């Protein structure tokens, strides 16, 4: 059980100055600004849940993850994970969690993966029998048996990420934090990793908290979404709810000859070039089919494409909605 209550975190950041004169000036005085990275964050996650933690860059995702891992102490607020405060009982706490930082490696770069695994086993004091069961299961499920003897530096990104995930699970943690594990993965690895995470959650009942930029990950994996923006939880609910809030907006990309089409209520122009138009459409005011029909009636169309909103666009829409 994970429970965060009114967590706040403020960072002080030095301003970098551009230009020669300013660089000299900065030698003697430096200006700082304060960034409210987390603003009164509260949520609870039950055991065995799988949660997607999403939001644009700089929204506070990593800060929250770091607090839950015990790496960072918040300025105020309560964080209770399985009855412990992460930054107070560090050792006991981290024994029960597994962490994958997508952009960094925990494997020793120059030695075979299996050597890293064995050292991790010793670090976590995993019993031999449990280690063996876990290793067999993880290598089979993640399909990494053939590469165990390869040094980490020679692995492809997808292979390495699968090894990273295995490394984080050797000690059978109850909670798994995945901080952008899918970055840069090829389609095959992505699917393999997704299936694995699903299975892990279903069969072992491991609580999974996943941050990602990829809407497809969310759709494939999680039932619950926490959406964070500018340090606040904007939405806590299912994917449907997110779509209800913002996902209805559609983007139409139109290529045409001759005169530009007339813009009606419900449409707004994002980008206009000679012969090309990007329109955001609110289906509540005007249905997609009506909009296309309207445009086609007045303009000579070459091509039309319709797409749903990306996470970024949804968040942008929620920002507008909450006026922050």
């Amino acid at each position, binding site marked *: 059980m994970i429970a965060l209550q009114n967590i706040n975190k403020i960072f002080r950041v030095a301003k970098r100055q551009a230009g020669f004169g300013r660089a000299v000036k900065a030698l003697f005085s430096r200006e700082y600004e304060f960034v409210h990275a987390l603003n009164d964050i509260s949520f609870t996650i039950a055991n065995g849940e799988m949660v997607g933690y999403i939001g644009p860059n700089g929204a506070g995702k990593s800060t929250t993850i*770091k607090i839950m*891992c*015990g790496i*960072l*102490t918040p300025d105020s607020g309560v964080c209770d994970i399985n009855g412990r405060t992460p930054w107070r009982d560090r050792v006991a706490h981290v024994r029960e969690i597994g962490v994958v930082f997508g952009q*960094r490696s925990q494997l020793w770069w120059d030695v075979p993966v299996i*050597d890293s695994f064995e050292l991790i086993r010793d670090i976590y004091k995993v019993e031999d029998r449990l280690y063996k069961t876990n290793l067999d299961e993880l290598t089979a499920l993640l399909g990494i048996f053939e590469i165990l003897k390869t040094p980490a530096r020679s692995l492809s990104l997808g292979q390495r990420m699968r090894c990273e995930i295995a490394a984080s699970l050797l000690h059978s943690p109850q909670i798994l934090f995945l901080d952008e594990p899918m970055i840069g993965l090829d389609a095959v690895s992505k699917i393999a990793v997704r299936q694995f995470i699903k299975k892990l959650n279903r069969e072992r009942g491991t609580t999974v908290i996943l941050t990602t930029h990829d809407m497809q990950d969310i759709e494939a994996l999680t039932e619950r979404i926490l959406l964070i923006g500018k340090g606040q939880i904007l939405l806590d609910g299912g994917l449907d709810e997110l779509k209800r809030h913002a996902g209805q907006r559609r983007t139409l990309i139109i290529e045409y000859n001759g005169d530009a089409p007339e813009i009606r209520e419900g449409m707004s122009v994002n980008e206009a070039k000679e012969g090309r138009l990007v329109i955001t459409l609110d289906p509540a005011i005007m249905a997609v089919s009506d909009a296309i029909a309207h445009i086609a009636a007045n303009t000579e169309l070459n091509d039309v494409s319709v797409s749903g909103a990306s996470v970024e666009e949804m968040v942008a829409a929620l920002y507008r909605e909450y006026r922050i």
Partner: protein
Amino acid sequence: MQLYINYFAINLKSQMQYKVAFFLLTLGNFLTSFVTLAGVWFMLSRFNEVEGFTFSQIMLCFASMLMAFSLAEGLARGFDTFPRMLGNGEFDRVLVRPRGIVFQVLASKMEFSRLGRLVQSVAVFCYAIPNSGVIWTWDKTLTLCLMVLCGSLIFFGLFVVYAAFSFFTVEGLEFMNILTDGGREFGRYPFSVYGRGVLKFLTYVIPLALFQYYPLLYLLGREQSKLYMAMPVIALIFLIPCYLFFRFGLRRYKSTGS
């Protein structure tokens, strides 16, 4: 302990992947202290003695300092390269593992190319031990061991302080070099050479003289008091503030995340 050996093995295995680099670095490390040695030799062949110490006596001091330093540097490289560990996020990984932080940092990086210095210190000992005129009774032998061991621990403490400073500033760390590299370089002569002020500083503030100058006096029979022999052990008190400072830096890191 078992875990430390495992870390040792994985570090060794990693570095043996790059044999040319390893060889060149070892050679380079050998050369860095060799040029210092050559400098001392040149100076002493011109002046014969300084502050009443002869060449072979100074070599005894040089070798113990070098060995102490190279042991600390080789085995506790994690603290020496700590700024990088903070920069690339490796330290966050340390924090999410259920072992002592100091232990993990200590064990995570070992630099075997520092053997270059170690080999040299052994070679210099081979010259200095028979030639320094010391009659090696058990107490003198013990004193020499204490000089090296405690010296190594004090240098380790300085590396911990260095690491702790990098929680606050990454750019400003160079000044610590005066204590670590400087300690090694200037420790080539007994610290009394630098005058009373420096000797006092290195006795009461940064206790480098406690495992170098004072026990050396005992070795050479200039002081009979067993206190001089025990000085290196007393110096270990220095490790307490070093550790506390590291803890203080860590608290700050956990609250700023950078």
